């Protein structure tokens, strides 16, 4: 019997980026969900436990911090949360850390590095 594929949720409101992440992580052995609106993200994360959340900070219906606060309140925090953003601001990086993210990455992260880091974070969370 093969081990279940880790569930990776891509929270990103740009369909082009969602599609790219789906192709990348599906081919790298993950079960991938994608969503761009915070209601949809919370719906997925509370009904189907997420191993790793790749969270864009700018979303439809709110921002990434709203998602993290709601998931924490609902007891549905993913095992690992990683913020992805287009703006490299130290104060945002600090906020991400305080909100429970292991890292804030500046888009675009080279795909090889992203797959490697995701694997390492999940192995470290076990």
């Amino acid at each position, binding site marked *: 019997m093969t081990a279940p594929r880790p569930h990776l949720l891509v929270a990103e409101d740009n369909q*082009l*980026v969602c599609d790219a992440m789906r192709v990348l992580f599906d081919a790298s052995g993950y079960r991938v969900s994608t969503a761009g609106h915070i209601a949809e993200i919370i719906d997925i994360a509370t009904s189907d436990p997420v191993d790793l959340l790749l969270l864009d900070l700018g979303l439809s219906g709110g921002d990434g911090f709203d998602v993290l606060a709601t998931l924490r309140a609902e007891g549905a925090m993913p095992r690992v949360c990683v913020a992805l953003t*287009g703006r490299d601001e130290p104060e945002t990086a600090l906020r991400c850390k305080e909100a429970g993210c292991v890292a804030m990455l500046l888009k675009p992260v080279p795909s090889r590095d992203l797959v490697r880091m995701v694997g390492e974070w999940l192995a470290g969370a076990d």
Partner: protein
Amino acid sequence: MHSVAPGSVEAQLEQARERIAELEAGDSLKTQFLANISHDLRTPLTAVITHAEILRDGILGTLTERQLESIAGIINGGRQLLEQVGEILTYARGAANQLSITGSEFKLSDVVTQLRALNESLVSKKGLELISDVSDDLPLLTADREKVAHIIGNLLGNAIDFTPQGGRVWVSAKCACGPNGAECVVEVGDTGIGIDSEHHELVFREFAQVDASASRQHHGTGLGLTIARKLVELHGGRIWLESELGAGSRFFFAIPYPSK
């Protein structure tokens, strides 16, 4: 109540003030637009680069040499575009006073070593000699490491761009006594085409290129030196140049050491 006679100097001054306020409001809108559009351009670029990297890394199957070459072109072009968009975003944030400094202590020599490695392939492709003379023993800088790297990176990028094959480019640094105490003075020089003294101030202006003609050989956003100046000023420092047409350029910037 004090009334202003129409046509008087006071009335004209009042009109001029209103006009300035209107122009400043328009300029600020334009800056905000630049920041927004730069940010929005990064997202589709991310998708393009990620898809190309998936193909390059063989995640969807093995490609031929020629296909890999073509994919490398997409990735390099995408990354170059992304860098330019990043420069516009930094400029817009600087113009809107939205840039801040995150200070830490670091060795300048480490930053220069890193930049040297980043520029190595370009330098050898152009047949240039890159010399760095930054002692490990210089006092630690207390500054925003990323922004200092950005300043030197922009100056170095220009030096490489404007120096013809066989030329020399260098980075050096020393501790000196400035107008307000000790400072670290960094020099980025080259044996390139040089800049006429009448253009020395112009090169720091946004979107300025000394050769602005359609046939110009050096491309870019024209923001590199404007951003460098902004980032130096954010550190309370100064930036200047010494150059003559045909005799290379030497750009200097000074960042103060914290007073003891």
